[in-house]
């Protein structure tokens, strides 16, 4: 398939944004999933709601809230600008929007996988002298690995496809925040650009299919190893 240089830039930026979002949210997602699965505390329900909010809020609302929080005139935005990490209308902001929108899917899959690990095994590990951290690292996470992987892939796919919050928070700036979905949207607004849109649609389908197949294979391998 022949992509123009502009389209390659869009694909490259999309991958950069989605991978950044996924990799950086992975530790937080895992921690949140573990805490939700294994601990009961006041605020457990509130945390659960907060994590899942982006799943049910209109994406444009999430994007606008991000703009209110991290925009150039907001205090948080000014602090980040000062330390050299501006978010509004930057690709970093696109990554944050994608991460937040993908977070519920990631946490949900990981939490279900962790809940499926028998607490009896964790108890046994504890009596063998393993600290909670070691139990999590050597028993819980390895046994939940297929689900953790599935959550990661799901988050990556969601991050690649994120549109509403992204375009609201960081707009649609070629070379900076124009990801595959916003590029497709832009192309469809201009008469005669349908072929370009169609090429990006094919890329998007190919990446998604590849991600799903890859996760399936990895999960199967993990299962065989276990």
């Amino acid at each position, binding site marked *: 398939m022949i992509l123009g240089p502009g389209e390659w830039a869009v694909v490259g930026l999309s991958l950069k944004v989605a991978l950044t979002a996924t990799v950086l949210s992975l530790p937080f997602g895992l921690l949140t999933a573990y805490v939700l699965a294994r601990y009961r505390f006041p605020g457990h329900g509130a945390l659960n709601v907060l994590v899942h909010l982006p799943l049910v809020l209109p994406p444009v609302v999430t994007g606008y809230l991000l703009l209110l929080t991290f925009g150039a005139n907001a205090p948080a935005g000014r602090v980040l600008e000062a330390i050299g990490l501006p978010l509004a209308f930057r690709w970093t902001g696109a990554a944050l929007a994608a991460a937040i929108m993908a977070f519920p899917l990631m946490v949900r899959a990981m939490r279900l996988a962790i809940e499926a690990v028998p607490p009896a095994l964790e*108890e*046994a590990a504890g*009596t063998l002298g393993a600290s909670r951290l070691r139990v999590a690292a050597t*028993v819980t996470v390895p046994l939940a690995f297929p689900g953790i992987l599935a959550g990661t892939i799901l988050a990556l796919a969601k991050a690649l496809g994120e549109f509403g919050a992204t375009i609201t928070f960081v707009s649609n700036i070629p070379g900076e925040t124009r990801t595959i979905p916003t590029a497709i949207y832009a192309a469809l607004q201009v008469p005669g650009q349908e072929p370009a849109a169609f090429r990006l649609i094919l890329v998007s389908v190919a990446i998604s299919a590849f991600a799903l197949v890859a996760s399936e294979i990895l999960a199967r391998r993990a299962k065989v190893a276990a």
Partner: protein
Amino acid sequence: MTGRVEIGRSVAGFTLDFAADLAPGVTAIFGPSGAGKTTVLRAVAGLTRPDRGRIVVGGETLFDADAGIDRPVAKRRVGYVFQEPRLFPHLSVARNLRYGARGGGTDGVVDLLGLGSLLDRRPATLSGGEAQRVALGRALLSDPRILLMDEPLSALDLARKREIYPWLDRLRAEARIPILYVSHDIDEVARLADRMILMDAGRVAAEGPVAAILSRAGTAAATRAIAGGLLTAEIAGHDVADGLTEARIGDQRLWLPGRVGEAGERVQIRLDARDVTLALDRPERISALNVLPVTVTAIDTGPEAGALVRLDHQGQGLTARLTRRSVAALALAPGQRVYAIVKTMSATPARVAEIGASGRER
């Protein structure tokens, strides 16, 4: 004394009130389901938090409600063998064994429990008995100060249990630490334990050497089923033609079914109080081979039709369970000399505990 457990815990409709000293050797915690046996083990391990009391093992206080001490599970150095093996399915047997290993190699325990041929296997490929042996080895390798075993054989059939007994005997002979062994199988207790703690409805109903508890077991529903006796005898020889084993208590001869142990070894014979019959005169021309002269020491009459007649045979206690009508008809009274008749086949092999010549003295 290597420790003491003295704990209380109240949850909806159930109160646990347990106190016992910990001694080296195997102490069975016996009782019906729901008596609180597992809760005691979990409290010692730190998996369940008691409301009150203290737990001291090997000189270290693991829990003290008043002093606010509650050592985390991982720091307690308890070996816990659960009802199910709980092996880590994603690790090989060797890595399961090394998971909690402290210092030294694993060779000693691998030899002790015969695990050498299993090391490269995955837990999913082990039989129930093998998996439980690996779980025991894994617990031992963490160099525990106390070993907690929660009905580790209850999921196994009789054949698999018999397969594991010899390994547990070796462990008992070598272990220098207290072993708390929860069970609701009295044969298993007679087979494995030195002492027993009888629990009922969250309380300690009786505590002491197994033989003493069995011969004294009370009239309460929870303990009636275990009343009987645990007689220690010495094997004198075998009658191969009839398939019997001859044992002696002093000059008194006892026949046991099957071939058990070797001449000169000590054997323990568990008797069920319901299998013991009493006669005022030495009976002649009866099928039962074992007739023991005994002295009546006490008669416990329960609220129902039954009565427990406590007996003494050369210093060893046993109990016969008769109807109150029979007790009246024979006019039994403490101090009376009578004959206890025990069918040989009542001492079934599961009720025979072999003790090596070098075995422990009770």
